């Protein structure tokens, strides 16, 4: 029969996802494209009040968790693709692209796990964005990219992706010790009209509901992260800014000393977890 030859189709429209399960699947294990990612581990020794550090992934509902387990479904990968285009784009007075010097981004495997770190020649604590902009202005003769905007976040995500699955290991002593201590102080300092510190939510109350959502430990091992709420990549500093607005505080400057110090301290709280860039959160 002609009929039998025709293709038999089963359409499973995924729009009607099962919404009945709205609790975090806390025992789930994260495997991305066959690669296991460590989402729970013993807290680093400098943390006094938490025994186990947990990736923000463990606090999300299983539908959100599933998005991160498949690179095709991870919307953050769209931005990584844009990052690759930008990586290969020749810009600036010296007619170079990132690829002219670095080839493919895999050269930076492992870099994400140690950022932010001290840059001896600049004499400052550098985030990934600083490396990108330094290359652009010094090597390419191009305009620096603006922090927290799509082009920058895409490149940062592309570089971060190379280290996915590797263990976060940010250095906290030596040259960066003062910055780290400053960051720690900021983490525990109450600010804003609600008079809250980072620790009030992300240390004292993680796992508890905040409105319709679970508070996480505020780990940044998955940044830049794709958020379902704004359908784009979110940088670490942009997230800090969002948090500060939520507690009715005046945010510090993106790329400023306060956020750099806080980035270092918060990153060090995730030492031992795997880098997850680009993660998916709500």
């Amino acid at each position, binding site marked *: 029969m002609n009929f039998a030859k025709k293709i*038999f*189709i*089963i*359409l499973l429209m995924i729009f009607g996802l099962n919404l009945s399960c709205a609790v975090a699947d806390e025992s789930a294990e994260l495997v991305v494209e066959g690669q296991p990612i460590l989402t729970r581990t013993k807290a680093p020794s400098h943390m006094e009040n938490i025994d186990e550090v947990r990736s923000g992934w463990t606090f999300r509902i299983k539908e959100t968790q599933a998005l991160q387990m498949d690179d*095709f479904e991870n*919307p953050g990968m*769209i931005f990584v*693709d844009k990052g690759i285009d930008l990586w290969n784009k020749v810009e600036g007075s010296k007619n170079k692209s990132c690829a002219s010097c670095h080839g493919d981004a895999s050269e930076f495997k492992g870099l994400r796990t140690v950022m932010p770190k001290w840059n001896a020649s600049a004499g400052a604590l550098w985030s990934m964005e600083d490396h990108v902009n330094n290359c652009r202005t010094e090597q390419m003769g191009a305009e620096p990219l603006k922090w927290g905007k799509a082009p920058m976040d895409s490149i940062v995500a592309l570089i971060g992706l190379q280290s996915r699955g590797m263990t976060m290991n940010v250095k906290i002593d030596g040259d960066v010790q003062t910055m780290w201590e400053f960051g720690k102080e900021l983490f525990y300092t109450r600010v804003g009209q609600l008079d809250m510190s980072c620790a009030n939510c992300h240390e004292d109350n993680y796992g508890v509901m905040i409105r319709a959502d679970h508070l996480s430990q505020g780990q940044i091992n998955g940044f830049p992260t794709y958020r379902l709420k704004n*359908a784009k990549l979110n940088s670490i500093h942009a997230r800090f800014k969002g948090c500060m607005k939520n507690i009715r505080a005046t945010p510090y400057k993106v790329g400023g000393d306060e956020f750099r110090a806080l980035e270092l301290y918060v990153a060090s709280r995730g030492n031992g977890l795997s880098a997850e860039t680009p993660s998916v959160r709500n």
Partner: protein
Amino acid sequence: MAKGVKPRIKVPKQASAGEAITIKTLISHKMETGLRKDADGNKIPQSIINRFTCDFNGSNVVDFDMKAGISVNPYFQFEAVVPESGEFKFTWYDDDGSVYEKTKKITVS
């Protein structure tokens, strides 16, 4: 032509006859609804992917008609049973007249 449009598809390379395979497709597209206004108060014209089709060896598999409410970067996932080896052809139709095509071969054992 809309900027930054890139179709992506995920189809298994091999399948056994009678097996239901999962096909995932995504096209990055800004999907401008036509309802927003720019800073000067002028309407931003609609610019969306209005139709998506998938064909297998010339016969139609799915045909989606899309309206302005579809989110940015439309994603479709469906299952299909393939009777023989062949080629899937995916086509996206843009409001501005552009047509984006991609094909993927599958071997049925």
